[in-house]
């Protein structure tokens, strides 16, 4: 038997070190799990601070003992390489593991075990956890806002139609493919506008008129984001081209426009659209506040889109411009067929980020009195029958926004891969 050196574990006595180390690790984890799940403190006979730190000390020593390089055991090497490279790393690893174990019981009990979802009044929530009944009862409002219940089929049908029309691009027919850009840039927005104007807003064709003040919830989030996305992109593209134009007037106006919108917070822009903009219009001219908000957000985000696209334009080598010019292409032909397709491909991540920011900015429309999902939450929170469930509401909305934004960022990464061309 070789001499054991516990300060410097080596491969010779690997089994001894492994057993000792794993035993200490096991004790540390066992102690934390017991105190976390069953509220039993097996080291309660020790002073408080020692009993608190003991698992950390045991775990660190345990990790130290199993930190043997090139041990020949696949899993051990993998473990050492990933979470146990040094003492400092081992301590951090332990802290994270302990934090996760400590957080599990509380989170589980709040979300599931002690939570209530049955019943339809506040009194049904007897557990100490979340009251999902609140979300269940208010779900309709969170999605449709104040839109009359019996008319909600109109929103449903519009959204289903719009979503299915968005998939036209998947049709593999060559004939249709030619018109795809035209379809997405011009025809699709027009269809969307007609649907929303006639079906959701109503007022003609025998449909009852629903004022935009009654719209709200998640559907309003989608409507606002959708139109702003559609409008801000072309405006941003023209601004980017304007900023790189050789004509001084066009260039300086574009620069001024972009820097102005980028320099002010969105909330002041919305203030402007709600209190200042009406002063700029003829007296008898009425513009719906939803329209004003969509214009304001679109112009605001267009400045950001413009800067992103400008980055793409600048990244293109001069040769591309020269080559296009030498073929006899004019300014517009050159940009539409040569420059923009390449530049836009380069800036997909940046544009996706701007669009994400746009979706995340939609809750701000509460400034003008439009209540999308976060606004509806705040309204529901102050309802005297349902006081005290702010947490549930915010967690619910956070999860929804997270899913939307995460899906968008994943989709943009896919697009980036799809359009990636080797140069």
């Amino acid at each position, binding site marked *: 038997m070789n001499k054991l050196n516990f300060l410097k574990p080596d491969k010779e006595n690997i089994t001894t070190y492994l057993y000792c180390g794993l035993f200490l690790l096991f004790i540390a984890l066992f102690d934390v799990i017991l105190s976390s799940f069953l509220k039993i403190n097996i080291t309660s006979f020790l002073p408080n601070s020692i009993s608190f730190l003991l698992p950390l000390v045991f775990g660190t020593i345990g990790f130290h003992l199993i930190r043997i390089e090139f041990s020949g055991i696949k899993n051990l090497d993998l473990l050492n390489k990933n979470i146990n490279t040094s003492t400092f*790393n081992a301590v951090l690893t332990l802290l994270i593991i302990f934090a996760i174990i400590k957080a599990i019981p509380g989170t589980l009990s709040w979300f599931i075990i002690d939570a209530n979802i049955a019943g339809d009044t506040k009194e049904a929530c007897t557990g100490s956890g979340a009251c999902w009944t609140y979300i269940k009862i208010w779900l309709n409002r969170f999605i449709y806002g104040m839109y009359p219940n019996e008319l909600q089929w109109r929103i449903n049908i519009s959204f289903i139609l719009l979503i299915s029309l968005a998939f036209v691009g998947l049709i593999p027919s060559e004939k249709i493919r030619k018109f795809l850009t035209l379809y997405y840039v011009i025809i699709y927005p027009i269809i969307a506008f007609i649907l929303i104007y006639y079906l959701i807003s109503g007022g003609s064709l025998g449909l009852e008129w629903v004022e935009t003040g009654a719209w709200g919830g998640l559907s309003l989030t989608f409507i606002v984001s959708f139109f702003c996305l559609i409008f801000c992109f072309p405006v941003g593209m023209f601004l980017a081209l304007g900023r790189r134009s050789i004509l001084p*007037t066009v260039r300086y106006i574009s620069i001024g426009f972009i820097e102005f919108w980028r320099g002010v917070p969105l909330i002041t822009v919305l203030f402007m659209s709600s209190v200042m903009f009406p*002063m700029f219009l003829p007296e008898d001219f009425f513009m719906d506040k939803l329209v004003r908000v969509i214009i304001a957000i679109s112009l605001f985000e267009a400045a950001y889109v413009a800067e992103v696209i400008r980055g793409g334009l600048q990244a293109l080598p001069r040769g591309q411009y020269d080559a296009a010019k030498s073929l006899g292409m004019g300014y517009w032909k050159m940009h539409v067929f040569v420059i923009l397709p390449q530049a836009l491909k380069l800036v997909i991540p940046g544009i996706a980020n701007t669009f994400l920011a746009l979706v995340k900015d939609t809750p701000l429309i*509460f400034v003008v009195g439009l209540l999308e999902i*976060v606004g509806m939450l705040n309204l529901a929170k102050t309802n005297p029958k349902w006081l005290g469930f702010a947490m549930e509401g*915010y967690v619910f909305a956070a999860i929804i926004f997270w899913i939307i934004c995460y899906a968008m960022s994943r989709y943009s990464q896919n697009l980036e891969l799809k359009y990636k061309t080797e140069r």
Partner: protein
Amino acid sequence: MNFKLNKIIPQLVTLLVVVLIFGFFAFNAQINMDNRGIEFGFGFLTQESSFDVQFSLIDYDGSHSYARAYLVGLLNTLLVAFIGIIISTILGVIVGIARLSPNYLIERTAAVYVEFFRNVPLLLQIFFWYFAALRALPLPQDSEPILGFSYLTIKGLYTPSFVWENLNIFFYSIIAAIISIVVIKNYAKKLQENQGKQLPVFSISIGLLIILPLLTFLTGGVSLDFEIPVLKQLSTTGFIYEGGLSIPPELIALTLALSLYTATFIAECVRAGIQGISKGQKEAAASIGLTPNQILKLVIMPQALRIIIPPTTNQYLNLTKNSSLAAAIAYPDLVLVFAGTALMQTGRAIEIVSITMLTYLSISLSISLLMNWYNKKIAIKEK
């Protein structure tokens, strides 16, 4: 001729459109204001504001002017921006480095944090901290002291405040220390260039920063006292803390949300910056015999900072602009005090909204000018 027209006509058309739009707006604004009997002008700024602000860094009450109210709002905005920038930078750098850690668990934890907090709207996060998390705190009478002297309650954070005597001397000493550090640094650089000797500049700097202010305590008549908050009963159920420094919950929620949100973006900037330095740089530095510390200080950081700083400044700007969301939880910042209350009272929409926007615009533009200057300074000087 044709060539020239090609350039002039589009410019003229653009100019004409812009002028027409602005003219149309101005014309309508004139008519609208005439109809409502409002005169355009900034005279209202000197009028008595007659509204109170909950939290103010300078002396203010209803008898002060609207201009003073504007200043209160601006200072509150800058305060939030300042605290937020400091916290988010520290947190962002830590998380950014953690995302490059070889430790799988640390890397994942940092990634989960970044992915979660950047994908949830900031307004929702502010609401969450203010209406859900901070509302769960204890009432003043039930609160337990933190570290023995601070109290975190539903009504805010109460900590001891400093009571200074001869504070100006203390400040002068710090300024003197900074100036001498700069001088010593220049001297050390010259020394190294001429004679190849190295001075321990870092330890000398730390020493100066500690010793000089300390001397003022001993000889300059500077003294420091603490005022500890004391629980006081107002009525049978109403308690508050008096004395010390009280930080309102709005400020806590706002800075917390802003810092946690912005830190995720700063973390990504830091990660991109460090990843942007090629491995060859490190190896080249090691091959000429630099120590790991010197490699980090002299080779990696100067190059990484060049990548990190421009997008990070952008994030600072975003944080400052996002602080205007304060209006949603009634923290008296520029938007709430000036574009909210003052606008409601005076009805001067055009003037007040323009002033507010111009203020933010000048903050943004001055920071970007500063950033451009810095960028030029640190840009790689190619021959």
